[in-house]
């Protein structure tokens, strides 16, 4: 096997691993509210979400080959790799993509460990930007397009991310307020039952939309690697096995359930009732679908978090834990640079080791080591279906909630 072939295998495996983390990182976006209100049991919720992600991923047959073009210049506009990166059987390009993916996964796992929802797309883009900066310099990054249309890191990633939580929050706050106004005078037990059905429906829609939006990105990255190493030539289609494996990876990740993040979104941010859950997921579903329909897809994570927060603002008397929100926003702000830093550092390390087989194996080994360490650390304070809905204030001494979460309560001085 040539160096490029081994690199390609590494890229495919690491890309699928990224897709898997993308899945469990984002289960919360669709299902946290339904799990928190008991509309669905935790297990049923994540499996439903996984199945709908699988269906969604297969429905997204639109070619996602130009996915990296939004942020970096390693492809031409028709999806082919830039010819100058194809020396050595494409290994230059493959190394950048590999380092970028490692940056994305590392950040996804770290934020999962801390129970923070952060955008998987931002982590992927951040990693790719970092690796490209290291490999090609600042001219390799598409900062702002050519100004004629929305493009580049600023136009497609940073500006939408700054605005999307506010849009989603506004929609959800208005929805929640309306729902409570309209159902005033109806017995609580009656409304809860009805709204649980609405919640399940709206959460399912968000799950499906997630599958169509997110699995595409990994499909695009893998196909780019295949083209760069000369294993695929068609820029109009992607190989079926790529689509199938990406769909399965994201669905498997989703069905595993990122319980730490589900807990933060469902219990930590706001105490959610079924009407709020419906308003939040309804707002998320509408914003995600409308924005991708209009060609400016917004991050599912930012939208879902904004919606849940908005549903707390819109319900009179609801508890909104602003310090939790501040921690999330902090994580969002550093997602791009942090994933970028890991992407850049791993590229430098691989380059120092000759930029070939040895370098690629060493940085992949680094990824495996870091992932294992974070997984083992998570076992010390596991969050699972049995405790995901435990009271946030930690009044129960058996509550194995996150130490990070408990530190937060100390900051907030919440009454036990």
């Amino acid at each position, binding site marked *: 096997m040539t160096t490029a072939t081994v690199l390609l295998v590494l890229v495919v495996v690491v890309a699928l691993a990224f897709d898997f983390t993308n899945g469990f990182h984002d289960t919360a976006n669709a299902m946290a509210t339904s799990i928190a209100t008991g509309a669905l049991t935790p297990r049923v919720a994540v499996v439903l979400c996984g199945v709908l992600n699988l269906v*969604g991923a297969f*429905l*997204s*047959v*639109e070619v996602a080959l130009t996915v990296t073009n939004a942020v970096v210049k390693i492809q031409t506009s028709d999806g082919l790799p830039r010819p100058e990166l194809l020396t050595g059987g494409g290994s230059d390009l493959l190394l950048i993509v590999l380092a970028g993916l490692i940056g994305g996964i590392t950040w996804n796992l770290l934020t999962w460990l801390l129970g923070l929802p952060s955008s998987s797309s931002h982590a992927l883009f951040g990693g790719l930007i970092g690796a490209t900066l290291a490999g090609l310099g600042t001219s390799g990054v598409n900062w*702002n*397009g050519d*100004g004629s*249309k*929305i*493009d*580049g890191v*600023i*136009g497609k990633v940073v*500006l*939408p991310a700054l*605005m999307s939580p506010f*849009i*989603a929050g*506004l*929609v*959800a706050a*208005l*929805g929640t307020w*309306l*729902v409570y106004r*309209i*159902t005033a*005078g*109806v*017995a609580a*037990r*009656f*409304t809860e039952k*009805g*709204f649980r059905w*609405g919640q399940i*429906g*709206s959460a399912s*829609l968000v799950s*499906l*939309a997630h599958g*169509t939006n997110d699995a595409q990105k990994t499909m695009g990255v893998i196909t780019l690697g295949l083209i760069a190493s000369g294993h695929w030539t068609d820029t109009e289609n992607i190989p079926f096995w790529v689509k199938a494996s990406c769909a399965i990876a994201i669905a498997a990740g989703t069905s595993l359930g990122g319980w730490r993040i589900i807990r933060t979104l469902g219990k930590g941010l706001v105490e959610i009732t079924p*009407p709020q859950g*419906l*308003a939040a997921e*309804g*707002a*998320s*579903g*509408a*914003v995600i*679908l*409308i*924005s*991708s*329909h*209009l060609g*400016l897809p*917004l991050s599912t994570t930012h939208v879902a978090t904004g919606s849940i927060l908005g549903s707390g603002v819109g319900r009179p008397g609801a508890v909104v834990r602003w310090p939790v929100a501040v921690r999330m926003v902090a994580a969002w702000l550093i997602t791009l640079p942090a994933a970028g830093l890991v992407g850049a550092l791993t590229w430098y390390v691989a380059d120092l080791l000759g930029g070939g087989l040895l370098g690629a194996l060493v940085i992949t080994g680094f990824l495996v080591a870091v992932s294992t360490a974070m997984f083992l650390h998570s076992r010390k304070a596991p969050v699972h279906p049995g405790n995901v809905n435990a009271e946030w204030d930690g009044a129960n001494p058996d509550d194995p909630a996150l130490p990070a979460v408990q530190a937060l309560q100390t900051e907030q001085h919440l009454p036990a």
Partner: protein
Amino acid sequence: MHTLSLVWEDLWKITVASLILGAGLPALFAVGIRSLAYGTGGDAEEHGAGIAPAPHPIGRALAGLCFAIVLLVVGLGIVLIVASGFGQELSFDSIYPTIQDK
């Protein structure tokens, strides 16, 4: 700054459409729940002790209508996802939705 205005142009469209669908549909669903409670009567509505409200069939009919509209719009949303995946798009040019090539 040009990018800012381009992004803003898209974002306000997203905001308006999302407010109509994302807040409007949950509100319509809530109208359905309220109508259903009115239609069911008895303990579905808050009432004083011993004077349970009578059921009103019209409430059930109105509830059915509300839920049907919500389901219809959500159904269109799913068609939108599926259609765009297959390189088609949903068009409202002829008032009722049709699927056409992008």
